[in-house]
């Protein structure tokens, strides 16, 4: 009897492993726009790392801030040196859970909630996103706004009207099942 229980527990834990279906993307896309009529501010990062566990409805993202590429070199230097201070805080991360259904026919709307960390400040964000599972690939899109001042990113008064007060962030991922 005792032995049967143990086998049962064992099977349960096996099931636990089988249940976690982890999708992974090593080359996700993230961009942000902070353009104003005075200045075009836009940067793209094509090396976003994303993991989504559709068994547990969990996700995690990470991106190196130095991986954001600007059109203007000087702007990129200023972004790293003066604003996000990427020597000190090299990456931005976002991790948490989502609620909503994923299906294969169309992109399902989900709500993503988790901790977003940037410039050493962690805040809870709740944002709408879409997820779709098709041909063993999980694609996802999200768009959200970030206020630099919320993350202790100081913008000097001299350039305040050149940088949008709210930065729009777009994230696109295309993940495959982790083997």
């Amino acid at each position: 009897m005792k032995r049967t229980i143990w086998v049962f527990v064992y099977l349960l834990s096996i099931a636990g492993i089988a249940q976690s279906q982890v999708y992974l993307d090593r080359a996700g896309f993230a961009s942000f726009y902070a353009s104003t009529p005075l200045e075009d501010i836009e940067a793209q990062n094509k090396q976003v790392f994303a993991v989504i566990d559709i068994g547990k409805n969990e996700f995690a993202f990470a991106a190196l801030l130095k991986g954001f590429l600007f059109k203007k070199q000087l702007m990129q230097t200023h972004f790293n040196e003066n604003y996000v201070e990427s020597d000190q805080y090299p990456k931005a991360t976002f991790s948490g859970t989502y609620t909503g259904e994923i299906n294969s026919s169309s992109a399902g709307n989900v709500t993503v909630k988790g901790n977003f960390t940037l410039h050493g400040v962690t805040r809870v964000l709740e944002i709408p996103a879409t997820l779709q599972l098709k041909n063993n690939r999980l694609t996802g899109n999200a768009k959200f706004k970030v206020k630099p001042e919320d993350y202790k990113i100081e913008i000097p008064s001299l350039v305040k009207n050149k940088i949008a007060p709210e930065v729009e962030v777009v994230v696109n991922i295309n993940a495959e099942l982790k083997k």
Partner: protein
Amino acid sequence: MRLVFITFLCLLAFVNVQSQDHSLLDMVSDSVGTNTRQLVEGTFKGTHIINMQSVEQPAKKELAFIMMHRFGKLNDGAYNFFGLDQAAIRLAFNYGVTNRLTVGIGRSSLDKAFDASLKYKILQQAFPGQHKPFSVSYFSSIVYPTLKYEDKPYLTARLRPIYTNQLLIARKFNSNLSLQVNPTWLHYNLVATKADKNDLFALAMGGRMKFNKRMSINAEYNLLPSSQIPSAPVKNSFSLGWDIETGGHVFQLVFSNSAGMVDPYFMSKTIGTWGNGDIYFGFNISRIFSFKK
């Protein structure tokens, strides 16, 4: 025995699941690896540390306009408003042909000298990386003074140019401290006396220490073994600067014992000393214009 083995397996599986639970973020954080190799940027704020060239240069299709300005000597006294009555200026344009190659032209009011230059980035420091601990650039320029001398009719165009060849070797030690040395070879087509050398060798050293995100204190010292120019009381140039960065501008406040702002001038024509109060106050302003679409 078998039971113990199965239990052990169970535990292992359980632990496995557990660790997966909270390691999703750890997993991405490990994978995104902050120790992937990155090129080191922003070694200095400006293309000049103060007078000497820095390893910085405008990116491809960017034009840097630089205005350098020096007032007169501090020890000129109250009558000359401590030097502020006089001024010397250099205007220059540097254009990034590629991210590595910059061409520049400039014009100094001192000796009405034109200059043309090129700067080529041979190596860019990368971190972490044992193989690229330094940034190395090559700088070359021709300075052509056009000032007319009534008493020197022999001063033909062939004798006027002064050539500069430099290696710029810099290292950004951390986000605040960067140091640079410029081994330099200067060539004068014409020198004052036979004892003076046409080919001069000098070593310029400079650095910056940032004290907040947008400001830094800079210093530079230029070592010119004076035995190379016996006919003139040439002194080593020493300058202190304060960089202030505001968006696309870099503003540098300067104190120096050199009036000249192009390499051969401050390197081999400095005769003032700090001790005597031969201090020139001035500033450099640079503005970047981008031609990228």
